[in-house]
C-alpha cells in the first residue's frame, strides 16, 4: 500500500490564524481525501481532492474555511482558516478506495487552538 506522509505531525496555533497541512504520497493516486477526527467522534470526511479539478466538499464543510490544493498526483494541502478552539482536532489524509481497494491513511496532524 502507498506510504502517506503528513506535515506537520502536530501544532499549537493561536485563534484567528490559519495552518496549512501537507500530504505527500509515494505513488501517483487519482483521489485524495481529507478527514477530521474529533475527540470521541467518528472520522468525518471533509472533502475529496482530485488532481486538476476543484475539491468536492461534504455537507457542513466549505471551501472558505478549508481550502484544498491538489497540484499533482502525489501531493495535496488542506488549510484550516481563521481557526477557533472548535477546530482542535486530528486531520487525516487518505488515498485509495477505488476498484474495491481500501483507503489508507497517513498518521494525521494533531491541531490544538488556543
Amino acid at each position: 500500500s502507498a506510504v502517506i506522509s503528513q506535515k506537520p505531525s502536530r501544532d499549537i496555533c493561536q485563534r484567528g490564524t490559519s495552518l496549512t497541512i501537507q500530504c505527500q504520497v509515494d505513488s501517483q493516486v487519482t483521489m485524495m481525501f481529507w478527514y477530521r477526527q474529533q475527540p470521541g467522534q467518528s472520522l468525518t470526511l471533509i472533502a475529496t481532492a482530485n488532481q486538476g479539478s476543484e475539491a468536492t466538499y461534504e455537507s457542513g464543510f466549505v471551501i472558505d474555511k478549508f481550502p484544498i490544493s491538489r497540484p499533482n498526483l502525489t501531493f495535496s494541502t488542506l488549510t484550516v482558516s481563521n481557526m477557533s478552539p472548535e477546530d482542535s482536532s486530528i486531520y487525516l489524509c487518505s488515498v485509495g478506495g477505488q476498484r474495491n481497494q481500501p483507503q489508507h491513511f497517513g498518521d494525521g496532524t494533531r491541531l490544538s487552538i488556543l
Partner: protein
Amino acid sequence: EDQVTQSPEALRLQEGESSSLNCSYTVSGLRGLFWYRQDPGKGPEFLFTLYSAGEEKEKERLKATLTKKESFLHITAPKPEDSATYLCAVQASGNTPLVFGKGTRLSVIA
C-alpha cells in the same frame, strides 16, 4: 442516511480472554465494510474488507464476519499488543464516502 454503531465503546480484557467487537450498520446497498486498527498517535491501519453476508476474513488472532445488519471482529487469545481502537466503516454502492463508527477502545492486560 447511512449509519454505523460500534459496541462496546471500551473493552478491557485479560491476556488470553477471547471476545468480540460489534459493528451494526444501516446502508442503502452495501459495497463494502471495512475494519481498521488505530494506535494512539497514528492513523487508521487497514485490517479487512468484507463484501457480502456470510463472508469471513482472518488475520492472526483476528477474525471478521459479516451479516446483513452487522459485523463482528472476534479476537482470540488476545495479547497486550492487540490494545488499540478498532474502527468499522461502510461504503454504500457507487462511489460514496466511507461512513465510520466511533470505534471500540480495546485494552488487553497482561
